[in-house]
């Protein structure tokens, strides 16, 4: 099912010319209305009105999170505040908060983008959708809410937290679609077990998960434990919020809403485009946003494009699930290590979604990475010999995968903290 079939299935040549027209407009607008961009364009002698191809965007400067912070709160807005009907702010967990704004048209576009994502994940106006993202300055709650209303689904704006109540309401209100982070979905499954609630007795059919990276293994576990079809969706407040990209029911990559966002995948070191299909940092340019356009925003999220056409009929390019963060990348003894690599190995060994924590320390001037792994039944043995062999197996597999040695510490089940929001599985104790 499509929300805006004409746009979502637009043939590539038409899409390209639409993108070029919109890109030129956006560049002209920010070059006129936003001092930050105007100065940069002047410095680099860039003339947006002369653009003739999308590739020319490569000569334009990047926008980073730091730029947003430096222009806190309203410095990058491209319209007067009187035309702004909403502001959101991204959490300040990794530094100063950043502020983004939306015009009335932006809110309509955003709602349509989210309605597309919901539709492609299988949600229809007949569905009852429980939005367990926080409502407030975070874009997740309101973003999904407006999109679901736009679609015409019945919205339960429950917001995040109070898991038992979430489950109670899920039962009583006959929720059919759940929106939250993937780790919270698993937490719900745990709490259901504690409460003696059988997920098969619920009306739940779809789960739309986002706001944190997750793995294919995690999807399988969620699908099995909750008896639903889980899809991934992607967005970030700096660019718009949820609705930038989402999976269709093929569950094989997220379609980027390319008529509104121009996508680049770059090598984070050289900032040159990677070969098609290779992993790199996602860089996005908004094509239609009025209040808060961004040019070449460095998301720091790692992904790769899937250029092959999708059986669903959408022509928008797909990208893989997020493969980590270019700034989450740990450098252990000079080797680049991504937590998702470790998660994938553990999943393979355990056969279930691993709960783990990474501790990075420096001992005698040498990096040491310790992986704390919760012992579930599939990796627990009554014989010490086998238990120790398992530790060795994990060590070897990780060393091969990562190219650097790690320590393994087995810990009791459920002893590692579960997260409601973005999972913070890395504890870096190095003081450099």
């Amino acid at each position: 099912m499509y929300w805006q079939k004409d746009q979502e299935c637009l043939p590539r040549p038409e899409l390209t010319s639409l993108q070029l027209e919109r890109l030129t407009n956006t560049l002209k607008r920010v070059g006129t209305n936003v001092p930050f961009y105007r100065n940069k364009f002047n410095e680099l002698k860039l003339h947006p009105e002369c653009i003739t191809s999308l590739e020319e965007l490569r000569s334009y400067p990047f926008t980073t999170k730091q730029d947003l912070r430096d222009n806190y709160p309203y410095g990058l807005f491209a319209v007067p505040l009187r035309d702004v009907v909403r502001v959101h702010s991204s959490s300040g967990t990794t530094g100063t908060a950043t502020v983004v704004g939306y015009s009335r048209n932006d809110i309509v576009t955003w709602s349509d983008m989210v309605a597309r994502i919901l539709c492609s994940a299988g949600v229809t106006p007949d569905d009852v959708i429980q939005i367990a993202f926080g409502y407030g300055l975070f874009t997740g709650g309101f973003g999904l809410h407006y999109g679901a209303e736009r679609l015409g689904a019945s919205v339960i704006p429950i917001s995040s937290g109070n898991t038992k109540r979430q489950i109670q309401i899920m039962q009583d209100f006959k929720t059919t679609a759940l929106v939250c982070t993937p780790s919270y979905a698993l937490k719900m499954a745990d709490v259901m077990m504690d409460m003696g609630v059988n997920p098969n007795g619920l009306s739940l059919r779809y789960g739309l998960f986002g706001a944190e990276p997750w793995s294919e293994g995690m999807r399988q576990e969620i699908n099995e434990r909750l008896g639903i079809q889980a899809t991934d969706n992607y967005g970030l407040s700096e660019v718009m919020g949820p609705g930038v990209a989402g999976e269709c029911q093929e569950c094989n990559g997220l379609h980027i809403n390319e008529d509104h966002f121009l996508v680049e995948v770059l090598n984070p070191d050289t900032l040159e485009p990677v070969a098609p299909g290779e992993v790199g940092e996602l860089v996005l340019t908004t094509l239609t946003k009025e209040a808060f356009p961004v040019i070449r925003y460095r998301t720091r999220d790692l992904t790769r494009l899937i250029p092959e056409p999708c059986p669903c009929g959408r022509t928008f390019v797909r990208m893989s699930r997020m493969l980590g963060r270019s700034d989450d990348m740990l450098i252990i003894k000079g080797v680049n290590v991504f937590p998702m690599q470790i998660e994938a190995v553990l999943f393979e060994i355990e056969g279930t979604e691993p709960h783990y924590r990474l501790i990075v320390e420096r001992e005698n001037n040498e990096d040491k990475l310790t992986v704390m792994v919760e012992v579930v039944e599939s990796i627990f043995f009554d014989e010490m010999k086998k238990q120790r062999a398992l530790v060795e197996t994990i060590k070897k597999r990780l060393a091969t995968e990562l190219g650097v040695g790690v320590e393994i510490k087995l810990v009791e089940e459920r002893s590692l903290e579960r997260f409601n929001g973005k999972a913070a599985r890395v504890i870096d104790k190095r003081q450099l």
Partner: protein
Amino acid sequence: MLVEQIAVFLENKSGRLAEITAILAENAINIRALSVADTADFGILRLIVDKVEEAKAVLRKNGFTVGKTEVLAVEVEDKTGGLAKVLKCIKDAGINVEYMYAFVNKTGENAVLIFRFEKMEEALATLQKEGFTILSREQICSL
């Protein structure tokens, strides 16, 4: 004639053993025998209890990782050489012992040896053939 044993994963943290025994006591589960194998980081607690399924369920509910294995319980006279006789017979049959532990019954006349062998069925057949007394779970619980 195999006896079910439950195993529990333990981090080396103070009070965990006390917690487990308290949970079992609260649920009126009787421990017949127990052993702990440990390394610097973690331990494996093995238990023979009177109500296996209940013990498993209640420990799981309390967040422990619990496994179940079958072991052999051999009763010997509590006299010098009792264990040696069993081990010799096992050695002659070319079977390896994975682990073992023992307890003495209430009367103090007999000792009960709990074995996990590499080849359980073969070990059982060998010991039975040699005339050793193999105890069932009911027998252990009634000791």
